[in-house]
Each structure stands twice: as C-alpha cells, then as structure tokens.
C-alpha cells in the first residue's frame, strides 16, 4: 500500500497501519452481510476499491517518478548536448577563423582583399566558395602550365639534372634526338651526350655560372647514341631550393643542327665568294651606299699600288687625286639613285704615278626589299687598248696616205703613159689617112696595130694595178645594151671572118635593152672573151648568147655566154685560167701572145658588177665562157634606131649554111612577127623557087656559103625568075667594096654580120615601107650601116689642149671632119677666148694644163654662162685620168662628157656626131 494512501486512511479513517486496514476490511466484510443493501456493495467492495485506489496511486507515482526522471535525464542530456554543440560550435568557429586566415594567406600579397580583417564576416559557405574559386584559379593556372609545358615539350628538348649532372627527367624530344630511351637517360650523367667537340673551359664556365644560380646560354654540340652529332641552342636554368641554392637544373634546348649546317655552308660559300673576288684579275671593289669602300680585291691593290687597309672605309677621294675623284663621286651618286648599271671611261692615277686609261663598269646592289645597299665596280685597264687604238688610227692614216699615193701614182702613170700613146696612135691614124705607098701603108698599119696592142697591154697593166690597189671601179650609167653588143661585135666579126670563122650573136628577146651599168667595162669583157675565142679558134663559129636570168624589182641578172669551136682548155688549166699571170701555158703565150692579165681583169670586173664568171671547155672541141652581171633597168633615152614598120605576116626566106645563124635569124624574124623559112644552101633555095613554093616577101642571103655563095645565088635567081622579092645580103666581112658587088647582083641591102634585131627591123622596114629611099637623101641609095649614120654637120669647136702632139692630132682629125677649130693653150686662154667670143658648139677641154686646168676653167665658164645667161655649151673633157673620181670631178665641174686618152677616133667621132645631131 502506498504510503500516501495509508496516511490518508489514517487521517480520514483512523487506520494506522496495513494491519489495521486489513482488520478494518475484515470487519467491513463481515458487516456487509448484515448491512443495508445499498451499503452492502460499498462495504464489500471497499477493499477492492482501496486496492484500485492504491494501484492508481502507485501508478501515478510511478508515472510521476518516471516523468521526473525522464525530465531530469532528458534535461541533462539536452544540457550535455548543448554543451557539446557549444564546444563544437566553438571548434567550428576556430576552424573557420583558421580557414579564413589560410584563405587570406593564400591570396597573393597584391590582392586587394589581403588584409587582416578580411573575411571576418564570411561564413563557411562564402569561404568555401572563395576557396573553390581559388582552387579553380589554381586549377586554371595548373592547366595553363600543363599546356605550356606540353607546348614546350613539343618544341624544345628538355632535361632536368641534379647538381652533379645526373639526369632526373628527359622529355620525349630529348629521347628522340639523342637516340636514347628514357630509361637509358634517367639516372645517367648528362655527359653521355658530350660530343667532345668543345673545349673543357666551356663546360667549366657553364658549371660555374649555373652553380652560382645564374642562367647559362650557349650553343652546344652533342653526340647521339648512334654517334651522330647535333647542335642545340641551350638555356640552362637553375632551380633553387628554399634556401636559394641550386638543387636542380633544367636545360631547355632547341635543335639548331640545320642552322649550323647552313651556317657552315654559308661560311663556305662566303669564303668561296671571297676567294673568287680575290681571284678575279680585274680590280673589283664594293662600296656601301655612303660611297665608302667596304671591299677590295688583290687586283685592285696591285692596280692602284695601295694596301687595302688604307682605303677600306674611305671614299674615292682618298684614293684618287682632287681632279679625278669628283667624276667618280658624281657617278656613284647617279648610280645609287638609278639602281641600274653604269659604264664610263676615266683616266686615273695609281699611287706609283702611272696614269691608266680605264673603263669603269659598275652596278648598284639592292637588298631584297628593293633599297640600295651599295655598289659593285670593276675596272678594266684599257691603256694598252687605247694605245693600240692610236696605233691603228695612225696605221690607218698611213695606209690611207699610201693608198692615196698609189692612186696618185696610177693617175700620173696613166696620164704619162697615155699621152705619148695618144700621140703615137693618133698620128699613125692621121698618117694612114694620107696618100701612102703600099709599102708605107703596110708599115704604118703594122705600127698602128703594134701601138694598139701596146695600148691594150698598158691598159691591162693599169687595170691590174687598179685591181691590186683596190681602185678598180665600175660606173653606173644608162646605156643601150643591144647597141653595145651590136657595135662591139662588128670589128670582131671582121677579125673572125679573116680566120674563116663565123661570129654570131643571139640576144634573147627578154633581155632588157636599156640598162644601167658600166658599158665600157662590159664591152671590155666581151671583147676580151670574144677576142680570146677568135684567137684560139681556127674553124667553125663563135656565138655570143645573151639571156636574162632573173628580173626582179628593176634588177636584172644578165647572162652572157661566148661559145667557140676552138682548141679548148685542159681540165687542170681551167681552174687557173682566171688567175693573174697564168695562161694555159707559156707556149700559149708564145703562140698566141697576150699578157695573161685579161681574164683576171675580166673576173674582177664581173665581180664588181655583182656577177660571176666561169667556163666549160673540152679540149679539141671548144670552150664556152660564161659570165653573169647585175644590171639595173633604165628608162630609154635614145630613140630606137629600129623601125615602126610592121613586118607582120611577111614571109621571109633565110638562106645560110650556118645552122646557128639560121636559128638566130628565124628567131628574130619570128619576134618581128614575120613568118620565116630557112634553107641551108643556095641549092636548096633554088629548089624552092623551082618548085614554085617561093611566095616570099624578102630573102635574106648569107654571102659566104660553100659551093654557091650569096652573090651567085642572087644573080642566078634574078636570071631565072621575075618578080623576085627584095633580097638582103648578110656578110661576115663588111667591106666597102661589097656594096658595089651587091648592087651589081641586084641585092637591095647589105649588112655585116652579126646583124642586130634593130638593124634587121630597120632594114626590112625600109624595104617594105614603099619608098626605098625614105631615110637617105640620095635616091636608091644602098641601105648600109654607114649610110644610116652618115649625117653630121660642121661644128665650131674650142680645143683647150697644152700638149703639142695632142694639139696636132686633134686639129688634124677635127679638120678632116670639116669642123671649125679654135685652139687655147690652157684654161686661162680658153676663158679669155670664151669671154671674147663664146659662140662655140663644143669645147674640148684637156684636164692637166698649166696656168689653169680643165676643171677650174669649166667651172668658171659655167659660172659665166649662168651669170650672163648664156646658152650651155657642151664641154667634153679629154682626160688621161684612170680614176672614176676624176671623171666624177669632171662631171661635177660642169662638163657634159669625157673622152679618155688616148683618144679613140671613133669615139671622138661618135661624140661629135651626137653633139651635132642634137643641135
């Protein structure tokens, strides 16, 4: 029972103890049996009731006790917990403070938040985020560093060694380049890559530097595992420990093996270039763009007799004199500005006092960006050259003087020789014109032919001399080629006829007639060749064939061929025949005469006329001499001597035993549009007529034919036939007497062979134009060449000549021809006479005369004519001069023409006739 309950029971019910209670309860139970029914339950149940109450008290007490206990315990626990938390919090706060300090200390000193009071308020979250930031930054920095390290490793060879040189770290590149694996490197001393190429001092110095904690830089040659050497550019940085002492070294290197190799090559090349410059035998120098010498070679030193040290760095003013230097300074400036090249001559003094003529050749040197860095110069010593030039000049002048002397000599010679020759031949001619006995005539003829031969020889010699002196010249004048050929052949035809040889000419119709060239020389060649042909032919024929090879833009190449049926020339002699002094052999000279110069002169002349000469020959059969020359076409100046009468469809019979001649004549007739027919003998012709096939308009007869000659044929025909057509006779030998025979034979015309196309045309024309006497004044006059030309009238001539013999000659000829002659001794007299009465038809002016020569006199006459407006008097020079220049001088002075001495009668006659004809 609970004490409290007991106490209450005691107080309320007076129950002192549990025993008492038990007693009471017993009593009550007993009483219950007899008690009131309403009390019975109470009495019976009182004990139970008390028990329940006691139980309840007990429970409440228990509950209370438990609760109190609980409260105490949990309070204690809570206090304890609280204390724990407080301590924990304090710890945390300490930790936080410590953390703040740490964070602050981690900040770099420069950071604005680095302050004792910073973070005081920051709680752990803020601190945490700050730390996170710092870590992130650190991480970033670390990453950055890692990247840099990676980059470094890509580029550089990196190794770390300790202080004794043991390799602690080697990056991949180090392993690659050294050829060692990392395992082979780590722990080994760095000297395993020593190449041994460096002196020991270098390494000593390196160690010293890095031991002091400084950075060493240099270029090192290392040896790889396989023995190959490689160069590196190394930087060795000491890594210091906390005490500031080096505890490790990091070496960062880049591979410069290539660069070293290139440097070596460059060095080699540079050395080579230096050697080259030194080796060049010409003075070579280099200047900077301030004009200072930066390089000179040995040759320069030797040339100027200086030591290069004295001049390097200086300008040209130090090298050359005050007079010489400015030119070069100026040239340098120009060159540096123009950036091109320069060449000029200069005269410089070398230190030994010698003066040199030089050529300076310079070039500006530019850098890659185009700016000028300096110039290069080379000096060529031309002193010798200049001297040589002077000598050449002197030699040339001497040669020219010599040449002029030669010309003068030739001119003089020519004059000296020709003058007496003129006298000889001229006088002989005159003498022959007089009455002579047969014997005298024979002797004089011999004299004349001898003189002419001599003249030919002299001319040959003079020509040869001209060739040797290089003075042989050809003219360029207009002339009639056809006429030239026709005229030169006539006298040759006579000679041929005397030997019984036919001389024929075939000019192809396309050959131009009027050309420009040197007619005299052409004539000379042809006469030479045909003359030779006649000389060396005894029987048969000689044919001159002229054809046009080429005609272009007024330039013609005309080809002449002289074919003979002579003795021919052996093969071995053919090559030499055009050489001077060689005749076929000396026996020829003896047999045939001649100087042997003719063909060589012909060759020279042909060459001068732009042609060539050659021959074909067969000993025993004959020779053909060919030559071609260039001629310009010229417009015609003289009237054609032919005829306007057309011969179209005229049927003409040609009778000639010579086949060539027949061919030539037939061609000509065909050209003239006539219809030729030819027979080769008189008999054949007679047969024709007998047969009645003789409807011809004209017959051409050859005089010389075997069995029956032309005359015979003519007479026979006349005898047997009526209504004969007119006949023309062609003869090789044209003598005056033949004309008479022709008349007797009933022949209308007579012509000497070879006949030219014009002559044929004219003759036929006259036959067919109705009146047989159109041309000449006399009726039924024979048509002869002579008659064609025999008109002339008397002229009033002033002869200016100082040489007595020449005077006599000229006067004689001119008088004979019926001209009126006035004589002047020299140019002055001529002038006086001219002034007195200048009414002359012609003046013949000699050149070399005392007092006043021909040139001067002519000039003065011409001057007077102009001043006084007098008519122009033709002046013909008579000159012995051989030179073209002299002839030009004559013409330039105002003369119209010239005759060369010795005067050719025919030539003179010709010219007079021309003058006369034109008046």
């Amino acid at each position, binding site marked *: 029972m609970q004490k409290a309950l007991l106490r209450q029971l005691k107080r309320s019910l007076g129950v002192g103890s549990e025993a008492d209670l038990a007693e009471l309860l017993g009593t009550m139970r007993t009483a219950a049996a007899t008690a009131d029914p309403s009390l019975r339950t109470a009495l019976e149940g009182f004990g139970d009731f008390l028990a329940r109450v006691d139980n309840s008290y007990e429970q409440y007490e228990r509950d209370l006790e438990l609760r109190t206990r609980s409260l105490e*315990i949990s309070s204690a626990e809570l206090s304890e917990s609280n204390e724990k938390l407080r301590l924990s919090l304090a710890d945390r706060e300490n930790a936080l403070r410590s953390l703040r300090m740490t964070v602050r200390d981690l900040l770099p000193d420069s950071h604005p938040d680095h302050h004792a009071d910073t973070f005081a308020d920051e709680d752990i979250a803020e601190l945490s985020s700050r730390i996170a930031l710092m870590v992130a930054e650190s991480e970033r920095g670390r990453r950055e560093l890692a990247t840099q390290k990676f980059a470094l490793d890509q580029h550089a060879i990196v190794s770390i060694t300790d202080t004794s040189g043991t390799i602690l770290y080697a990056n991949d590149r180090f392993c690659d380049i050294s050829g060692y694996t990392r395992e082979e490197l780590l722990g080994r001393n760095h000297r395993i890559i020593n190449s041994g190429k460096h002196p020991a001092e270098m390494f000593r110095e390196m160690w010293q530097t890095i031991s002091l904690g400084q950075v060493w830089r240099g270029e090192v040659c290392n040896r790889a595992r396989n023995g190959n050497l490689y160069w590196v550019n190394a930087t060795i940085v000491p890594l210091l420990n906390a005490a500031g002492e080096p505890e490790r070294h990091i070496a960062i290197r880049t591979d410069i093996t290539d660069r070293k190799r290139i440097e070596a090559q460059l060095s080699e090349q540079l050395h080579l270039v230096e050697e080259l410059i030194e080796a060049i035998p010409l003075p070579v120098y280099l200047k900077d763009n301030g004009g200072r010498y930066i390089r000179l070679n040995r040759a320069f030193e030797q040339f100027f007799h200086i030591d290069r040290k004295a001049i390097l760095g200086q300008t040209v003013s130090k090298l050359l004199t005050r007079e010489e230097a400015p030119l070069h300074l100026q040239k340098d400036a120009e060159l540096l500005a123009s950036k091109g090249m320069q060449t000029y001559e200069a005269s410089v003094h070398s230190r030994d006092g010698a003066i040199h003529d030089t050529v300076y050749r310079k070039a500006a040197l530019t850098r890659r960006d185009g700016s000028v860095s300096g110039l290069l110069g080379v000096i060529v010593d031309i002193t010798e050259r200049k001297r040589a030039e002077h000598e050449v000049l002197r030699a040339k002048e001497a040669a020219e003087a010599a040449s002029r002397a030669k010309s003068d000599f030739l001119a003089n010679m020519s004059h000296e020789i020709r003058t007496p020759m003129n006298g000889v031949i001229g006088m002989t001619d005159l003498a022959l014109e007089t009455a002579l006995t047969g014997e005298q005539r024979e002797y004089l003829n011999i004299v004349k032919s001898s003189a002419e031969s001599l003249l030919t020889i002299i001319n040959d010699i003079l020509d040869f001399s001209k060739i040797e002196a290089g003075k042989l010249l050809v003219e360029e004048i207009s002339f009639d080629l056809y006429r030239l050929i026709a005229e030169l052949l006539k006298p040759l035809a006579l000679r041929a006829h005397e030997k019984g040889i036919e001389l024929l000419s075939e000019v192809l119709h396309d050959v131009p007639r009027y050309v420009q060239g040197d007619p005299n020389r052409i004539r000379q060649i042809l006469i030479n060749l045909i003359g030779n042909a006649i000389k060396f032919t005894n029987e048969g024929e000689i044919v001159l064939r002229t054809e046009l090879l080429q005609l272009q833009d007024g330039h013609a190449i005309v080809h002449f061929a002289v074919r003979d049926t002579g003795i021919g020339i052996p093969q071995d002699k053919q090559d030499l025949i055009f050489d001077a002094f060689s005749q076929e052999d000396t026996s020829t000279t003896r047999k045939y005469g001649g100087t042997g110069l003719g063909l060589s002169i012909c060759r020279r002349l042909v060459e001068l006329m732009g042609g060539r000469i050659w021959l074909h020959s067969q000993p025993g059969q004959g020779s053909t001499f060919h030559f071609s020359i260039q001629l310009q076409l010229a417009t015609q100046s003289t009237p054609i001597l032919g005829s306007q009468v057309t011969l179209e469809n005229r049927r003409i019979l040609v009778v000639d035993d010579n086949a060539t001649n027949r061919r030539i004549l037939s061609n000509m007739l065909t050209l003239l549009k006539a219809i030729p027919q030819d027979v080769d003998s008189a008999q054949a012709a007679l047969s024709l007529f007998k047969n009645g096939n003789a409807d011809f308009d004209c017959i051409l007869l050859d005089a010389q034919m075997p069995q029956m000659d032309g005359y015979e044929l003519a007479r026979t025909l006349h005898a047997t036939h009526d209504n004969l057509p007119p006949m023309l006779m062609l003869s090789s030998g044209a003598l005056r007497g033949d004309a008479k025979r022709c008349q007797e034979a009933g022949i209308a015309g007579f012509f000497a062979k070879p006949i030219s196309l014009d002559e044929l045309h004219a003759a036929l024309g006259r036959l067919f134009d109705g009146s047989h006497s159109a041309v000449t004044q006399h009726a039924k006059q024979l048509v002869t060449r002579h008659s064609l030309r025999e008109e002339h009238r008397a002229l009033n001539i002033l002869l200016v000549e100082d040489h007595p013999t020449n005077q006599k000659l000229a006067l004689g000829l001119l008088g004979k021809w019926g001209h009126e002659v006035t004589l002047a001794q020299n140019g002055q007299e001529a002038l006086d006479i001219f002034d007195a009465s200048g009414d002359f038809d012609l003046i013949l002016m000699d050149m070399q005369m005392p007092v006043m020569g021909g040139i001067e006199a002519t000039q003065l006459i011409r001057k007077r004519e102009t001043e006084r407006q007098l008519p122009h008097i033709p002046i013909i020079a008579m000159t012995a001069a051989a030179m073209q220049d002299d002839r030009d001088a004559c013409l330039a002075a105002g003369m119209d023409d010239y005759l060369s001495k010795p005067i050719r009668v025919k030539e003179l006659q010709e010219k007079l006739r021309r003058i006369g004809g034109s008046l």
Partner: protein
Amino acid sequence: MRIKQIINRKPNELGAKLDDLQSSDANLLLVFGSIEHFCSPGLHDALRATFPDALLIGCSTAGEITNDGVDDGSCTITAIKFEKTSLKHGSTHLSGMDDSFSAGERLGKQIVSADLKAILVFGPGVNINGSALVNGITSVVGVDVPITGGLAGDGGAFKKTYTLGPNGIADDQVVAIGLSGEALRFGHGSFGGWEPFGPARKVTRCDGNILHELDGEPALEIYRRYLGEHAKGLPASGLLFPFAMLGEDHSAVGLIRTILGIDESTGSLILAGEINADGYLRLMHASTDKLVNGAESAAESAAAMHQSADGSLAILVSCVGRKLVMGNRVDEEVEAVGEVLGQTSVLTGFYSYGEISPFMPGASCKLHNQTMTITCLSEN
C-alpha cells in the same frame, strides 16, 4: 450483417457459452482470448464443432476488449454473418523473423481475389517483423486494399503467442481473411496519443527492426537509464517509452515503435517494426488522459470514414503499452470509443503487441505501436 458476441471467463465453460451463439448462422468467428484460453485444449475443436462452416480467426491477447470494457483472462467470441460479402481464408507458417515478408506474400496470394475489399490479418506477437509482414501482403494485393489486424499478445510476457486460423491454433502461423464484395463498408482509424520528449537521437546502428545503437550508445542502455529501477521490468517496462520515428530532417514520420524484446548481450532492442536507418528516434511518453483522447480520435476517424454505425462491427486492436500506462483506467479508452461509435456497434478486439492498419485513408498499411486501431465493418 448480423453479429452476436459471447464472453467466456473460464475455459471449461466454453461449451455452454457456445450454445448461446449457436443460433446465429455465422460465416465468420472472431476469437480473442488470453493465453490461458488459447492454451487450453479443445478450444478449436469446440469452435469447429459448433460452427462447422464458419471461418475461424483470432489470436491470444494481452487483454480482451468488448463493449463492457477490458478484460483479462477471458475469451471473446464474436460471430458474424455476412450476407453480401464473400470471405476467403488464408494461413501460413512463419519460420522466423526473417520470413516475415515472404509469409506476407504467401498469405497475400492465398486470399487475393479480383474484388478484394479488405483484409484481416493476425500474426504472432514475438519473433516477427510486423512491418515486413504487412509489406509482403501489400506486395501481392496492392496498396489499395486496406489491411487491418494485429500481432497476438501473451499477457505481457513476450514469450509465446498463439493465432487461430483454418488449420487451428499455432504459435507460428499468420492467419488472414480476405473480404470481397461491393456491399462491404469499411472504415478505420488509428491514433496514439503519445508525445515525444527529449533530444532526437540518431540511429547509428540498426538492422531492420533491431535497434543496436542510438547516437553511438547501445539502445538498451538508454532504456535502462530512463527506466531506472523499472528496468527490471524490461521488456514490458519498455512499453512505457516508445520511440517516435523521425526522418533525417527530424520531422515526425508519424509512426511509433515499441519493443518486442531485448538482447542483453548486444545491448539491442527488438522493435515490433522496422525503423529508418538514416533517421532519428525520440522517446515518447503519455498520460492516461492523452491516451483516452487518442482512442477517441481514432474512433472518430473510423466513424467518419465508415459513416454508418448501425449494426456494424468494430474491431479494436489496442496496444499493450497503453494498458500498461493506463493501468486500471484502461477501460476508459474503450468507453470513449464506444461513445463515439454508437450504442449499436458491437465492439470486439484485444490488446496486441502490434497494430496493423492503414496509416490514413488511402495511405499504405503500416504496423503501428502504442495505438488504438479501430476497424469498422458493415454491409450496405
């Protein structure tokens, strides 16, 4: 539905009492009795003889509940005639505490059906993990089927309890009835009335429903400390201080855990159900008044849900701990319930070692401790 109830105080008077019930053609018999009754042979036979066709279910108690209040040493038999509801019996052997979940599964499979509306389950009060059992059943029947019932008691001895099922009476079987049918009305409520005090203690070591340490201290020591001289009465005296389960954030989960036993060797407490290993526990205490008010609240919840008090059966499963606290005044809570549920409800029930009920309407079913759990059944 029709209900009839008898209370038998002496086992040997059972037969006579049963005759009173005979007239009802019950299809379900709820039998709650003290150990004395359940241990007496012939109980089952007698019941079976009287009601050959009815389903038998029940268990030993730590106190019996009727409309009159709480009794000890009696045996309450309530006969119910369901007219529109079909019933299905289930029973399984529990081989140990670790078998709790699987036993629940087995049981669930036995009673599961398409229109299952409610389950009554009774299991042993010792060597069992009550929350695992409930989870096992739920895993089969789903969370929408309310499960009510409780763990058998043995008058506070915590040694051996008995359950009554289709196979008779055994100390290691879990029995259940599945009720199906649209006509069934079901209401429940559960309330404790305990209040937590003191510090929240961290569960530092536990194994399912075995609590080894709190705040690093052997859990048993805490009880000893708080119980002082009452520690002698462990494990029963431990009922005076159940634990409130707290989550990691110290907020109340809403469940209370009491011990079923202690392990002196390890200093561990064997709880009726599992606790949250990451959570906290807080000691609770209660006064009688609070507990009675709690019972009242439970009754109000059940009534509100049930919404029909006439002719309904109310199964009250209360906790032995409450009886211990309330002592003689324990009847007051039954009376409070009776007042709420109306005079026409037939009350039956027992004091168990763990109550099974949905936590709140619609929530999953849990094992409760120290609560008054009320299940109201009726038919439309």
